[in-house]
């Protein structure tokens, strides 16, 4: 998850090998089912596309070809990767349409996309994506273009099918509600880099990155007083042509003064912040981070929290050095209510800095 322009879609298109421009440079590693995709040629990636990995897009109207019937489009996808007759593929398509909840699929299969409602179209997209039983399904903002009621149906459908088929699903969204409902693991992205990665409960209950704090703070909450103002993150996401130096988030971060100037010079790597597998890319120390989130969780605005911490931060710089990793997991009970706002002894362990999280989600 992340704001618009934080690189979510670009990353997923990169996984699918759908960047077609001449000047595209992709580096790093993408692992899918034991196969590295960047080293694999475009021909190989094309064979995997649709078969082992599939994608559904934001706007189901513009993503379906307006001149072909939906049956044709699904059959095309299925027959591309399976050597079957047209009739068999058609039966399969009808079956799929039924499974994604299209009423009277045998009649509707010969309809064109414009004859369906937005939610039904997205169901068709899902049916098409799942036609070859992919290992990985990437859903790029699958509900953004839909009504709220339909959104919930589509999300239910995706999670049902995920359970049924056992595919890995990557949901790309900026909608925290969607994230909370669907995901096991969350990767928060900012300016094309991972900002925080961890289990959904960890990221929601003990977020470790100021950007995540900002996003959670800008979301209306049922358990807060209604009069309380939402706290937007000031500023806008940076242009990726001119990414800010150091931590890309530092121009919008209220806590940069706590790190002794590292924020605008040094690019933070992902570190394990609290529990195993929960990582954040931030220069704040574990203590500062814990204290700040504690303040914010109590309802303070970032400026207050930062000011409170300012006094504490006047203590020597040695705080910046990572405390020894103390992975006594017992420190953090599973109940978020019992969270210790002082965050004393937040263990930090250097995570694998090369890891971006995408591979994990895709594996």
């Amino acid at each position, binding site marked *: 998850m992340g704001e618009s322009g934080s690189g979510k879609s670009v990353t997923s298109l990169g996984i699918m090998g759908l960047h077609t421009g001449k000047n595209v440079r992709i580096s790093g590693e993408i692992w899918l089912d034991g196969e590295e995709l960047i080293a694999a040629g475009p021909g190989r990636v094309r064979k995997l596309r649709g078969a082992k990995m*599939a994608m559904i*897009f934001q706007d189901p109207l513009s993503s379906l070809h307006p001149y072909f019937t939906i049956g044709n489009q699904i059959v095309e996808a299925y027959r591309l990767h399976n050597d079957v007759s047209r009739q068999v593929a058609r039966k399969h398509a009808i079956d799929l349409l039924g499974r994604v909840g299209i009423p009277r699929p045998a009649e509707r299969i010969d309809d064109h996309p414009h004859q369906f409602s937005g939610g039904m179209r997205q169901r068709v997209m899902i049916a098409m994506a799942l036609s070859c039983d992919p290992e990985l399904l990437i859903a790029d903002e699958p509900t953004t273009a839909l009504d709220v009621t339909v959104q919930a149906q589509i999300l239910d459908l995706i999670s049902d099918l995920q359970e049924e088929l056992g595919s890995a699903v990557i949901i790309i969204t900026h909608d925290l509600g969607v994230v909370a409902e669907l995901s096991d693991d969350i990767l928060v992205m900012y300016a094309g880099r991972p900002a925080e990665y961890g289990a959904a409960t960890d990221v929601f209950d003990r977020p470790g990155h100021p950007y995540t704090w900002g996003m959670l703070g800008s979301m209306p909450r049922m358990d807060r007083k209604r009069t309380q103002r939402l706290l937007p993150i000031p500023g806008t996401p940076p242009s990726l042509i001119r990414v800010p130096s150091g931590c890309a988030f530092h121009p919008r971060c209220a806590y940069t003064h706590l790190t002794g100037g590292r924020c605008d010079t040094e690019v933070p790597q992902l570190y394990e912040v609290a529990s195993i597998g929960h990582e954040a890319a931030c220069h704040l120390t574990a203590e500062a981070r814990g204290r700040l989130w504690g303040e914010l969780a109590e309802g303070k605005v970032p400026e207050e929290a930062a000011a409170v911490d300012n006094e504490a931060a006047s203590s020597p710089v040695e705080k910046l050095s990572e405390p020894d990793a103390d992975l006594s997991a017992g420190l953090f009970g599973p109940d978020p209510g019992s969270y210790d706002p002082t965050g004393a002894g937040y263990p930090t362990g250097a995570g694998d800095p090369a890891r971006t999280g995408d591979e994990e989600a895709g594996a």
Partner: protein
Amino acid sequence: MIYFIIRRLIMTVFLLLLVSMITFAIFFLVPRLAGQTAYQLAAQYVGRNPIPSEIKAVEAKLGLNAPLWLQYGRYVKGIVFGVHYSSGTDVSYCPFPCFGYSFRNEQPVWPQLMSDAPVTLSLAIGAAVLWLIGGVAVGVLSALRKGTFFDRFSMGVALAGVSLPVFFTGLISLTLFSYKWPLFPNVHYVSITSNPLEWARNLVLPWITLAFLYAALYARITRAGMLETLGEDYIRTARAKGLPERQVILKHGLRATLTPIVTIFGMDLGLLLGGAILTESTFSLPGLGQFTILAIQNQDLPEIMGVVMLASFFIVIANMIVDILYTIIDPRVRILCRPAPCSNSATCGFTFRPTTDWCELSMVCRSLSSAARRWASWGSPAPASQ
């Protein structure tokens, strides 16, 4: 579908009537408004240096002193049934379909048009096939190789093709391929029925000349459309399925790009069928274009009027065909006549569902009867509620 076609046909008939009305007005109403008397008007229908008695005869034959709507009625009747032009003793018969009667040549216009039409038809259709294939192919290729040498070169040639007039490219091609290297010497029209091979051989140069002009235009349109289409989301979806790039472009891309091309193709072909004046003159092909030029040079008004009517008929008909083709090409245009979806599954099996065509026919009847009712109540005061 049937409903749509029938409705479109009815509209076409009205459109043709309108065209005939405007044409008639230009030739008969406008001169009168400009102050010409019936005698002066009739004088133009007789050859140069006419004798007054001849003029009087034409005036009587055309009924130029009758009210204008009567004249128009006679004109339309001539087109539909044929008409007798009589001035007492002297009778000129103009059989169906009477698109005017040339009093100079003492013969109806229609047979002349029909004898010239095959030439124009051969020229226009042959060239259309060439330019459609050539233009679309070049356009697709240069869209795919945008920015490469091929793209720049072909678009440069296309620019030349759009800019250079036919009488220039035509003469150059004649000089080169008919005189310097006589691949196609002595270009003249041979009817397809008498010798198909000669017919084709003689038309190669005119075809290429005419097609060059249009292919250039089509290449540019195709290229622009293709580039736009390739940026669409559904192209990304096609790629995400794992389709090979060639299929993505030739199936998904071209399908969407062709739609606007069909529109202009219909228009262009319709326009050309009314006479490819420049090409026909350049290659001395005795088609409708040549006929038009001669008619204008001789100031033979019925002939000009006939060719104007025929040309506009071609355009209207081409338009209609394009519209009907659209229902096949673009499913979103299709008129759907589908019974409302059955909400109660228990009764679904028993619900009567007329076939689509019957349903559409009933829609035709309904819309016709409502039009008739509107027609009948025309002039009576409208209900206050409206």
